């Protein structure tokens, strides 16, 4: 140690271990607990002080004024026992002890009060004299008044407790059985509730879970509800109002009360189309008195709608579109095709009336009960379905292979992106997945297209009788695909000419597959389909006449759907057929213009020439000259083909 020390011995002095050993490692290394700093030490010591101790004494003091002076001693002795007891088992039974002691105090006081009341009627006054006893002490009247008041107050308190006790006892004895039944009912109901809903016990309360978390939802709302027992008063109140009382009560968070639904509207133009409210059992008003099952179902529906709307609103904000989606309050507006909007609205009716037969507000607001085609229940249904799919996909990703890989890759190909060295384009393709809003926009676009197509077809079929348009919708439809077959035929001559075409309606355009195999792509505009149909009708007429002429053994001289001569039609192409009667005497020409309609011309027959010496052959007798138009309206017949049939028949047998 000290080098000047000449003993020649070096002593090493090591202080005793001051610190506590926290841990001894496998290699024998000791880890010490860090010594406490001054402030930490103070905090530790402060922690040991029990502040409640003092309070407790105070509480004892507070009870004292209500007791009469006399029992003070008695009480004190009891308290002495109490405190020693208290010292022994401080922690766990603290509350119980305090309660017991308070109860004891109360009972003692009551006992005394009752005694005073009973015994002090006649002398010897055992306990207390209220009047002035002697002149030794000089209490002022004021003091007496205070004492009197004090007494009166204590008595009142005692009386109140006694009365409450008596009432409850009376009640128990009278409706003992009833209460038991109620208790049992509560547990029955609870059991039933437990079978349908997730419940858990937290402390003294029973909490239930309305959320869709277990099925994959990631919505922020906890969706908890509380289950309580119906109190006596409520039970009676319900009975008085003639409602079947239920011993179980559920308390739903206030923002989930009421009824909600998502309304999907397709609006054309700016004008708000007054849409009718469609009655739906789920949408009917739910009252506070309804059975818990109904109320919980309604609340869960509200939660679902909220989540759905929140999801859509989020997507609408994120999604980039040429015309941005607008999210205002409870409404999302997005344009599907020019002039047509999709409006998704979250309707929530928080108004919970307690009687059954209140007319819902929105019914009053929209008194027109007619069903509006613009409101689409299908879309609403598929919205629900889409959100459920989203939930499902949250839970059920593809299995990772090998199983030790993480769940984060929700796509098998994405997992392979690294090892397969996918390039930027391929990866961005993988990452593109459609969101709910995009899917619903596609569906609504399809619905608009389908409705427009149907309308055009119906209108044209109604307006045009000759030839007839027949429309066959395919029964099986997909959300984004519908097919319709259109037949054009003339009644009575169906076996001759039958023009058919198939329209397959997607979500962006309509594909028309014509009889000759041509495919025509039509836009969302109604005009396109109308024009196509008009042209087809025109072609059909010529086609029908051609078939008819063949069956009548006429000679076909000319047959063309795209006539290049003559005035150009306003739309499409004129088609024409020229036929000659079997004997070659007559020539009939039909030209059909899509807009103007058909024109029929017959070669003038009255062109007989006189026989000359030079031209002797009989074949020169009838030389064709100019054509003359036939006024088809004067010719009898049900339709154009029928008229042509008659006309050609006549001419052929001339």
């Amino acid at each position, binding site marked *: 140690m000290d080098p000047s020390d000449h003993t020649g011995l070096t002593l090493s002095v090591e202080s005793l271990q001051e610190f506590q050993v926290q841990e001894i490692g496998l290699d024998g290394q000791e880890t010490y607990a860090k010594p406490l700093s001054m402030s930490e030490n103070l905090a530790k010591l402060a922690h040991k002080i029990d502040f409640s101790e003092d309070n407790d004494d105070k509480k004892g003091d507070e009870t004292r004024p209500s007791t009469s002076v006399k029992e003070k001693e008695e009480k004190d002795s009891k308290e002495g026992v109490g405190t020693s007891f208290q010292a022994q088992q401080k922690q766990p039974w603290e509350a119980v002890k305090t309660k017991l002691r308070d109860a004891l105090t109360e009972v003692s006081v009551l006992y005394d009060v009752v005694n005073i009341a009973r015994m002090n009627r006649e002398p010897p006054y055992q306990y207390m004299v209220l009047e002035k006893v002697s002149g030794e002490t000089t209490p002022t009247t004021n003091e007496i008044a205070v004492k009197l008041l004090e007494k009166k107050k204590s008595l009142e308190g005692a009386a109140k407790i006694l009365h409450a006790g008596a009432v409850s006892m009376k009640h128990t004895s009278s409706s003992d059985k009833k209460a038991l039944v109620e208790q049992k009912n509560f547990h029955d109901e609870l059991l039933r509730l437990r079978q349908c809903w997730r419940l858990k016990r937290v402390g003294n309360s029973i909490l239930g879970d309305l959320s869709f978390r277990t099925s994959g939802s990631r919505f922020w709302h906890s969706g908890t509800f509380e289950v309580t027992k119906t109190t006596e008063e409520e039970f009676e109140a319900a009975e008085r109002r003639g409602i079947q009382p239920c011993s179980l009560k559920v308390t739903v968070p206030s923002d989930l009360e009421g009824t909600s639904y998502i309304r999907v509207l397709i609006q054309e133009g700016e004008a708000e189309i007054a849409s009718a409210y469609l009655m739906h059992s789920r949408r009917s008003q739910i009252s506070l008195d309804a059975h818990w099952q109904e109320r919980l179902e309604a609340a869960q529906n509200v939660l679902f709608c909220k989540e759905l709307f929140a999801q859509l609103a989020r997507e609408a904000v994120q999604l980039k579109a040429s015309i941005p989606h607008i999210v205002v309050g409870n409404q999302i507006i997005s344009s599907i095709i020019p002039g047509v909007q999709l409006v998704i609205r979250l309707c929530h009716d928080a108004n919970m009336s307690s009687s059954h037969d209140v007319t819902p507000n929105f019914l009053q607001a929209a008194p027109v009960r007619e069903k509006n085609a613009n409101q689409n229940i299908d879309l609403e249904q598929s919205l629900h379905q889409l959100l459920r799919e989203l939930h499902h996909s949250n839970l*059920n990703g593809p299995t990772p292979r090998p199983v*030790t890989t993480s769940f984060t890759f929700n796509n098998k190909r994405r*997992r392979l992106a690294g090892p397969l060295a996918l390039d930027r384009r391929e990866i961005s393709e993988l990452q593109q997945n459609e969101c709910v809003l995009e899917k619903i926009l596609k569906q609504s676009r399809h619905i608009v297209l389908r409705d427009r197509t149907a309308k055009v077809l119906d209108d044209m079929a109604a307006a045009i009788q000759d030839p007839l348009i027949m429309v066959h919708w395919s029964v099986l439809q997909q959300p984004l695909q519908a097919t319709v077959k259109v037949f054009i035929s003339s009644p009575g001559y169906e076996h001759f000419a039958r023009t058919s075409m198939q329209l397959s309606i997607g979500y962006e355009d309509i594909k028309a597959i014509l009889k000759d195999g041509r495919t025509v792509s039509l836009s969302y505009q109604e005009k396109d389909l109308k024009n196509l149909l008009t042209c087809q009708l025109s072609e059909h007429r010529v086609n029908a006449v051609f078939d008819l002429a063949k069956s009548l053994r006429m000679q076909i001289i000319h047959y063309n759907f795209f006539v290049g001569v003559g005035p150009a039609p306003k739309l499409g192409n004129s088609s024409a057929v020229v036929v000659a009667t079997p004997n070659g005497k007559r020539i009939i020409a039909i030209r059909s213009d899509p807009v103007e309609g058909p024109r029929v011309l017959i070669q003038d027959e009255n062109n007989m020439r006189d026989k000359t010496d030079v031209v002797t052959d009989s074949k020169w007798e009838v030389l064709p000259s100019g054509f003359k138009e036939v006024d088809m309206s004067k010719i009898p017949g049900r339709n154009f083909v029928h008229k042509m049939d008659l006309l050609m028949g006549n001419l052929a047998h001339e």
Partner: protein
Amino acid sequence: MSSSLPGNLGSVSTTGGPNLQEYVLQGTILDQSAEALVHRLRALCDNVDQGLETFRDHEMVFALHTGGQTNNQVMLRARRSLDQADSPWQLRYLGQTDLSDKSRAVTVRSYLDALTSDTLPAFLNDIGFRLDHEFVAKGHMFRKGKMKVLVSKLFKFQKPNDLQNLEAMTSSRLVELSVVAPSGSENIADDMKVFAEQLKPLVSMDKV
């Protein structure tokens, strides 16, 4: 001289992401009781709508001695699925168990993984790693939120590379409950413990 490149390109090769850790609880169950456990798990877990998820994986554990005086060695695990031929190989690095907090109810170790091409075993051999042992694990996979439950039976090879003749290592199965999460997610351990409680008394899950 420097070109006017945006700076973000330089980050192509940096290994982003937080430090991942694997939280594990393990247990074993005898073959004859395994079915009961599977039933129990079917009731508890998420991915049971479409029937049970089975798997068959081949794992090769490679080791490289770092040449120090002690037998320090680095272990890498190469694993592939035998059911799906086109699935990638997975290279896993499992760190030492984190002993800093004794009160933790689950094993925590650092975890790194990469999916690779099928040249992985040859590549590891080339950079000096040698096959330490290999096995085939067959069993069921369950998921419950972030948690993954594997009930697997381990087989060893009778002959190298002969997948037809496998020999069961034991007459029991390994039950493994694991979550891979960024370090510091302590509440995961509690969730896992709660879940493990629900498997009692069939299997008692504990830290390794």
